[in-house]
Each structure stands twice: as structure tokens, then as C-alpha cells.
């Protein structure tokens, strides 16, 4: 993986402080390379020397906390597995909002939802067995447009527009395969924002963040 800007292998070894190859063997760095390498070392040295050390006052702050505790806490050992197998449930308030919103909300149920206070988001039976409908929501009353773009639609900002509902809540429901998905919302076609309700936010590798959800066969829990 080289292009003009990368250090050659000989220079990397030189920077590693390894003994130089025999003169004329062709593996030693060119003068230009060597100068660039030396510059980098000098910079690192200047940086290191410029670092103001962590002060000894920190020791006292640590000891103050240690003294407050009095003694090392005991090792708590084994813990129990608390997670029971359970159906993922959706709260009725959420369901009412679904019905009221203009958004297209579709789910498949092999039976009618049970009467009573709880409804269930059930795996779609007619489509692919491992596809689940997932609802994305963003509260953005001031936005003129919101869309969702992610690993499931090639990061196209225009492919999944969301619909504005009551109280400025934008939403869309999308069929997704089970597993991990990364995405962001695109607000007003220019601003990429993460989803505060996602399972996690991760580095996207470009200095920004992606939201991550992991979709199980029973759908997502949203509180």
C-alpha cells in the first residue's frame, strides 16, 4: 500500500532504530526520505519535551479518594445471569402514536394483536424469514426534511425520506435483515446527525460518528 507520500520499508526500519543495511544495497533511505524521517523524529522529540508532566498533586487527589474508602472493596465474585428469554414488547403509548402519525407503519402478525394493554411487534412471516420492520424516529421540529442513510441503503441520503408527524417527530419504518446496522439521519439534506436512541455510537473512521443498532428476530425495544 504505497503512494508517493509513504515512507519506504528501509526508512521505516531506520525510524524503528534498526541497524542500517549495507551501503549500496539499495535498501537504505534516500537523502530526501531520510530528511523527512529526521524531521518527524525531531517533531516528536519537541512534542515530548513540551509535554507538561502530570503533576504530583494528582497523587494526593488519588490518596484522598483512597482514604475516603478506607479499605480495598472486597472481590464480589460471580454474578447471576438475569436475562430471561422474553418477547420484546412495545408500550401502548408508542402504539397510539404510531396509529395517529401520518407515517406508513406496517407490521405483519400471524394472529391479530392480543386485546388488552400490550401489543407485540412480531417477525414478518410472508417476507424473508430473517427480515424485521424497524421504526426510526427523530425529534426535529425545526427541520425541513429528514432522511435516514446507512449500511442498509448504501448511505444514500435521498433514499429513505422520513415523514413529519405530531410534535415534530419524523419517522419511517424500514424492513431490515437481522444483525448489525449503521446509520445516521440526514437533516435538511446537509447535516448528518446520530440517533440518540440507538444502541451505540461508534467512530465512523472519518472523524464522525455512526449510530449502530442490532436487530434481533423479535425487533427492537424502544423505551
Amino acid at each position, binding site marked *: 500500500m504505497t503512494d508517493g*507520500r*509513504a*515512507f519506504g520499508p528501509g526508512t*521505516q526500519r531506520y*525510524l*524503528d532504530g534498526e541497524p542500517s543495511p549495507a551501503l549500496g544495497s539499495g535498501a537504505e533511505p534516500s537523502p530526501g526520505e531520510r530528511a*523527512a524521517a529526521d*524531521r*518527524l*523524529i525531531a*517533531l*516528536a522529540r*519537541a*512534542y*515530548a519535551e*513540551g*509535554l*507538561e*508532566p*502530570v*503533576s*504530583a498533586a*494528582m*497523587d494526593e*487527589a*488519588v*490518596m484522598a*479518594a*483512597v*482514604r475516603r*474508602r*478506607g*479499605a*480495598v*472493596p*472486597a*472481590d464480589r465474585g460471580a454474578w447471576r445471569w438475569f436475562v430471561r428469554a422474553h418477547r420484546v414488547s412495545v408500550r401502548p403509548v408508542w402504539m397510539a402514536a404510531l396509529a395517529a402519525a401520518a407515517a406508513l407503519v406496517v407490521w405483519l402478525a400471524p394472529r391479530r394483536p392480543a386485546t388488552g394493554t400490550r401489543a407485540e411487534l412480531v417477525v414478518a412471516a410472508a417476507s424473508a424469514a430473517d427480515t424485521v420492520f424497524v421504526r426510526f424516529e427523530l425529534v426535529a421540529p425545526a427541520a425541513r426534511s429528514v432522511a435516514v442513510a446507512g449500511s442498509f441503503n448504501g448511505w444514500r441520503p435521498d433514499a429513505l425520506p422520513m415523514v413529519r408527524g405530531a410534535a415534530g417527530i419524523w419517522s419511517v419504518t424500514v424492513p431490515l435483515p437481522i444483525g448489525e446496522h449503521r446509520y445516521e439521519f440526514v437533516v435538511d439534506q446537509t447535516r448528518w446527525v446520530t440517533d440518540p436512541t440507538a444502541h451505540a455510537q461508534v*467512530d465512523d*473512521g472519518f*472523524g464522525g*460518528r455512526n449510530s449502530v443498532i442490532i436487530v434481533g428476530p423479535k425487533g427492537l425495544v424502544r423505551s
Partner: protein
Amino acid sequence: MEPSDGTIVRRVLDGDVEQYRFLVERYRAQFGRYALGLVGDRDAAQDAMQEAFIRAFDALATCRNPDRFGAWFFRILANQCRNVVARRRDVVDLDTVEAAGADRADAVVDRGELAERLEAALARLTLEQREAFVMKHVDGRSYEEMAELLGVGTDALKMRVYRARDTLRELLEDVR
């Protein structure tokens, strides 16, 4: 002669918590530059280190090999520092940093500014690359030491360091 890590840990576990100070001093000296180089901001690095020492104390009973407290503590510190950096990346506007650097390209750069330029460039590396570069060139560790502390093979570490060097070279080409 100074007592070993294992001796101090056992004394602390037996109830003499004041002894913990020796570990704090020892590993502030050993790993302080790592924290500073990785976090970049002296106050934040100090906070991260402080927090790491306190967590290490709280978990001291789970340290299975007291004679290797240092390596065990390093993991706690590394996690703490990485979390600080990850959280800060949400806030730092990298474009501002880049623009400021470009403005100074033609000016005479003194040592303070040099360090700032490198800091800005380091912030553009991935966390692992920055960590590897700092350990190699700011801390001056060997690949074997780094492998021991990070639990990653030397080949992978070399790759990270090489990548970091290439990226830094590109970012800092105009600096003389």
C-alpha cells in the same frame, strides 16, 4: 531498595492503604507520558490518570498477579484514556484545527507552535495509530514492550506505527 509491586499490593490489601501512594508515584512516572501523548490535553490526561488509579484501587482485590500490577494497571489506564479521547472527538471541530494549521504554514514556527502542529496532526490519526506512535516515539518504548502492555502482536503494532508515520508526514509536509 524500593519494594516490589507485589509487596505493596499485598500490604494495601492487608489494610495499609497509605502504601498505595508508592504505586501511584511509580506509575505516574512510568505511564504519565503515555496518557499525555494519547489524550493531548494535560488536564484531561491528569483526570484520566487519577480516575484510573482510583478504579484500580477499587478493583485491587481482583488483580490476580500483584507482581504484575503495572501491566494490569496499564489496561485500566488505556481504557480510561481511550474513553476520554472518544468522547472528545464528538466535540473537537477538526476542520477548525486544520484551517488554523494551514494559516501558519508560511510563518516562522517556534517550538511551541511545532508541538501544536503535531498535536493537531496526532488528533487526525485513529486512536490505535496515535497510541502506537506515542508509545514508540514519545514514550520511546520497544515493540516488545508495547506488545506486552497492549496485548497486540508486534507485526500489528508496526503496521499501526508505519501508518501513523505516513499520515503525519503527509499532514506535516510544510513544517520545517
